[in-house]
């Protein structure tokens, strides 16, 4: 495979709400929630932010980081479960706002939390086939957790964009492997404000089956072992699941540490493991090997194997790192949070 990551960029809104603040409202014990989920706080969008504004900021960071000419972008895809319009693509607004229009193809993706990685695979195909020079794959979400539901503690906001191409790569994509079945572990019907989920059903039959199958499938395809990798990122709906998946597969806690942003950020859904990958790329060195497996409810997993090039040092400082984006958060209370997330019906 001669394709890879040309650049990457992330965006995280400034506001945060702590688990204790949410627990207080519902009379829950914050310590058991923190222990159970391994999440302390999550990001909250500003009143005038949504999936599109987040996707634009992430895409602009990716383009600026490597000094990309937006007119060379041949495809742009935004994956999300919170597209602002049910019909009218987020990606046309993003394409216009990064100056990539009019000579490109655009569409929106949805596959719960793995919409972004599916977009990466699509861009890989178009680039490999010589149909486009550069493709942009974005995973962005302003996730909704129903008030009082377990997901409310982790449903966060954020987005990440990857520019895929053949030249000037910061990381080669050596291979990708996917595992998909029809498993209804989590969904949201048209017009409903919050998703439904299967509780414990989302674990074994959902997350773990698909993540481990895709991961093992890729390792077998490539003939590699977990110890061949410097870093690993798994989809992070909370801190527990990826830690357990890593252990099940034979990866250790040091490998997953830089990418495990969920504890301080929450689950950015379509941006989730893409954010973990960005945080890892922020500190990786030339020659480092990275393993990533996403998960989207419904269900499916996309697994990737990357090798970092020396170009990463050249362009790394061209846009803010994930750590920089997470710094100086503004903490808010539940009432302000409810206002920001439009939970108060006017």
């Amino acid at each position, binding site marked *: 495979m001669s394709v890879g990551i040309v650049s990457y960029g992330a965006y995280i809104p400034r506001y945060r709400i702590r688990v204790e603040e949410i627990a207080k409202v519902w009379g829950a014990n914050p310590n058991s929630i923190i222990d159970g989920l391994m999440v302390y706080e999550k990001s909250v969008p500003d009143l*005038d932010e*949504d999936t599109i*504004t987040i996707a634009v900021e992430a895409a602009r960071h990716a383009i600026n980081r490597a000094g990309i000419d937006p007119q060379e972008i041949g495809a742009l895809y935004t994956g999300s479960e919170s597209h*602002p319009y049910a019909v009218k693509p987020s990606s046309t*607004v993003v394409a216009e*706002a990064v*100056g990539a229009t009019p000579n490109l193809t655009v569409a929106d993706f949805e596959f719960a939390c793995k919409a972004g990685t599916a977009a990466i695979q699509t861009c890989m195909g178009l680039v490999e086939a010589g149909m486009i020079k550069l493709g942009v794959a974005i995973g962005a979400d302003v996730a909704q957790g129903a008030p009082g539901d377990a997901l409310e503690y982790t449903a966060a906001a954020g987005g990440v964009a990857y520019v895929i191409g053949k030249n000037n790569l910061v990381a080669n994509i050596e291979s990708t492997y996917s595992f998909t079945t029809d498993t209804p572990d989590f969904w949201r019907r048209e017009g409903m404000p919050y998703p439904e989920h299967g509780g414990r059903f989302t674990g074994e039959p959902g997350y773990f089956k698909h993540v481990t199958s895709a991961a093992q499938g890729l390792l077998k395809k490539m003939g590699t072992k977990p110890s061949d990798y410097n870093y690993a990122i798994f989809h992070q709906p909370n801190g527990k699941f990826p830690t357990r998946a890593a252990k099940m597969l034979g990866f250790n806690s040091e490998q997953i540490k830089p990418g495990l942003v969920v504890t301080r950020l929450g689950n950015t859904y379509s941006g989730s493991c893409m954010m973990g990958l960005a945080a890892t790329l922020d500190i990786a060195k030339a020659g480092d090997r990275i393993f990533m497996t996403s998960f989207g409810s419904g269900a499916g997993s996309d697994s990737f194997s990357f090798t970092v090039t020396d170009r990463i040092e050249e362009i790394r400082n061209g846009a803010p790192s994930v750590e920089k984006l997470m710094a100086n958060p503004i903490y808010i209370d539940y009432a302000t949070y409810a206002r920001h997330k439009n939970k108060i019906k006017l």
Partner: protein
Amino acid sequence: MSVPRFWRRLKNIYNLIGTHCNKCGSYLYPPRNMCPKCRRNGMTTPFKFKGFGEVVTYTIVHTGAKDYTKLTPYILAIIKLEEGPRLTSQVICDHSQIRIGMKVKAAFRKLGEESEKGMIYYGTKFVPMED
């Protein structure tokens, strides 16, 4: 604002694209095809501003405009772009932070929506440079 009216200007408002008069060198944002100095003798071409500027004056609006009642209180400001022209926009920062002379940079935000069923307007607001 009606859909065609917003659409006509959305490239300008998403990407801070104004005009530049090649005759007198004026940078114009909002864009104008007729240079106010040269009038018919001017020659204007599109120009993309970098998005950096400073706050000339500001206010904190408590009684919002029609599409902005959910956002109050918000900071409305006149910003002078590096290249010269001044524009009206909002600044997103802590209300205790805003001051005349503050350096700001462009950010992509939602401007509002026509209604729950209607179009969503996006555009450029500003955030402090230190962000």
